[in-house]
């Protein structure tokens, strides 16, 4: 194949992927955000208190009111910092919450999938507020932390697209109205 053609093709591909990535990146208009993280040890386990802001997009709310279950994932990762290599991940915990709308009672139900608890709310705002108050979120046992290493913890809150119904997934991936996730917020782990 002609060398010039190969170059043109490569450039085209790189350009296209850059555009797509930038487009996707900039689509985080409604961003989840994690704030005010505090760590304390309870019964030998480091717990975290944090406030998460979870604005849901119009599209997400519409889906919710039409009976689609939304899944919010709050993920934490504890890392030990190493001098020469990249940081080693030593603990990874995911808290999964499902939000449903109950048509009969006109209530929004929040379900903690890990623990199996449900709580209903009359409006979405109350649900979001409750969900956003993370208290006593277990991260890692103290014993697992090496004394001579620095540790950091990363938190991300996002709307899980994979748990949406299959027909919605392509739309969710491609459309800007659906991409809701926060950045990975990182703190040094001190307790």
């Amino acid at each position, binding site marked *: 194949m002609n060398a010039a053609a190969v170059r043109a093709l490569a450039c085209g591909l790189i350009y296209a992927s850059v555009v797509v990535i930038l487009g996707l990146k900039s689509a985080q208009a409604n961003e989840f955000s994690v704030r005010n993280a505090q760590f304390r040890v309870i019964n030998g386990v480091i717990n975290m208190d944090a406030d998460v802001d979870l604005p849901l997009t119009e599209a997400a709310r519409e889906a919710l009111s039409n009976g689609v279950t939304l899944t919010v994932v709050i993920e934490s990762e504890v890392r030990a910092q190493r001098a020469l290599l990249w940081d080693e991940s030593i603990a990874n915990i995911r808290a999964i919450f499902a939000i449903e709308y109950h*048509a009969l009672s006109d209530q929004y139900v929040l379900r903690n999938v890990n623990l199996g608890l449900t709580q209903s709310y009359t409006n979405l705002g109350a649900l979001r507020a409750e969900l956003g108050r993370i208290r006593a979120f277990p991260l890692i046992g103290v014993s697992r932390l090496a004394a001579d290493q620095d540790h950091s913890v990363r938190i991300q809150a996002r709307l899980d697209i994979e748990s949406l119904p299959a*027909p919605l997934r392509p739309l969710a991936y491609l459309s800007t109205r659906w991409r809701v996730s926060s950045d990975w917020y990182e703190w040094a782990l001190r307790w």
Partner: protein
Amino acid sequence: MARLMTSAWSVVALVLLLLGALVLMSDATQDSARFSEIYSTLLVVCTLGLIFLAILIVANLWRLRTQVRRDEAGARLTFRMIVIFVLLSLPPVFVVYYFSLQVLHRGIDSWFDVRIESALTDALELGRTSLGIRMREQLRQTESLGLEIEVLGREGLTLALATALTTNQAAELTVLSDTGAIVASSSSDPTKLVPHQANSSALLQVSPARSFVGLEPVSGAGLHVRAVVELSIPAAGGQRFFLQALYPVAERMNELAETVQTAYAKYRELAYLRDPLKFSFTLTLSLVLVLSIFTAVWTAFLSARRMVAPLRSLAAGTQAVAEGDYGTRLGEPARNDELGFLVTSFNDMTSRLRSARDETRQSQGLVEEQRTYLEAVLARMSSGVMTIDGSHHVVTANDAAGQILGVPQDRIEGANLAALAANEPRMQPLVELLQSQFSDTAHDWRTELTLFGPNGRQVLICRGTRLPSPHTSASGYVVVFDDMTALIQAERNAAWSEVARRLAHEIKNPLTPIQLSAERLRHKYLGHMSDAEGATLDRLTRTIVNQVESMKEMVNAFSDYARSPTTQPETLDLNALIADVAALYGAKLVMLALDRHLPTLEADPNRLRQVLHNLIKNANEAGADNADQAATEIETRVARTEFGDYVELEVRDHGPGIPEQFLASMFEPYVSNKTRGTGLGLAIVKKIVEEHGGRVSARNNQPAGASIVIQLPLRQAEGQARGSIATAEAGS
């Protein structure tokens, strides 16, 4: 070709993989739990696969374009075939795609009926309404209960609540403050320690005037009615107190309500997902379309290339053959269709060309060998060989021909016969002979020819034959001639000597007895006879003896003529010899007019002496009857004739001249116009002159007399002769 096939198989594998992925995707779209999780992965896989196929096709297109640009064999045909294949395969695919989409959309649309939706909505409404009635009732109950316990103090609350629990058939009764602190609680479920928390938003809504009632799904326990009433209890600090009651909904109602709720939710979800579903199916279908198109195009490339491959190799092979490489062989194709036949024929043709060329080369080599052989033979032959074409041009002449004719070989070769005769006069007789023979005879001929050239008299035996020419109608001739002069001479000499010897011997034998007998007769009887008889006897015996003497002389002369000793040439000054011989006769009889610058000759002096004697004698005898008594004249000079340079010797007499009839034959033996003599004198002269390679001729002079002219060739170095002749000419 093998690479083409392996890459073909790998692309086929890719296509099958993508097909499988698309099947799974369409399955997953219908919300099958099996493949739901991997839907996104499948999507990515399919997209990547299709991009790869697209790149493959673009690469193929580019390669084809380059091939067409470079005008490679078969490129245009490949392009045309690919276009045809693509045009054949794409329209059906598009038609099917379009109709499938239509069917799909209509099919999905047909799932949703407005009447079902409205029915479900109505059912939900019915559920809500019936539950609403219950809810209002229970709210009233709660309100009245609240009024009841308002007046109770804190201590009695728990008891009152427990009592009211069973009375009102509540699941849970709780008194709490506005801060959420629980004042008293009672629950029907003994295991439950912490009562259900009312959400703060519900609490906020409650005021003394307005209570809250609502349905609440509780996990594991179904629907409950929650009623919250504010208690007007005066408390310090402005604290407000609420009574929260949770009533379970009847099981049957719960079930029904749950069913309706679930159905409604499901249907709403489905209705909401209608468009995304359509989009998903359309996406899958489009991916299938793209896959089909790419597969069709790529297959078009593959099959077109495969079909045209023999043509490409054929075109390349033809080019190679045109450039002269007959060793090209195309690989035998596996199939036996017309193209395969073409390839087989091509291979046949090249192998035949190759063998023909090899044969040609071989025969060329043989021809070359023959030519070389022939040339070598011709060059070494002692006979002269000339080939003449139909237009009387000398095509070839070998070296011997040039030597024999005394003309350089390159002057003979290529010349026209007529031109040759004009330029080289010595060849005139030969040319005349050839021309006459060529026009007359159609078969082989053989003649004797006499030339007179620079080397003297030559007798050639010429043989000629026609050369049939395959190309032109006018055939050529080949002439072979040999210089027989020396041979003839030797033959003649040998023959004559043999005859002469025998004859002389046979004749001489009886002569001696005759003479002796006669002498004895004389001797015996002369004395015993009378004078008259004696005189007669004397006269008669004398006659016998004289005649016998005469005969002996003749025989001796003849024997002399025949058995002449071999010529012993030496460098000779002719003038000196002549002077020598003439001196014997005296100046009165012989006068000399000799060229002073006569070059030297190669000749036998004794033989020449004999010649001179004979000629002088003849001339003197002829001029003896002359009244003037003029002397015989001998003149020498150098003659530069067209034949070459000669020394001419003229013996001039002043006699009566030679009778015409004798002129031609006077040099033959026994031809004489004299009564005496052997008649061999001139024959001997001629013989000797010819032995020296010269020529003798006779002519009559004006007004009277005859001359014998001898021409002897000059046989020394050309340069020397020329030089002397040039000075002679300058001097004279």
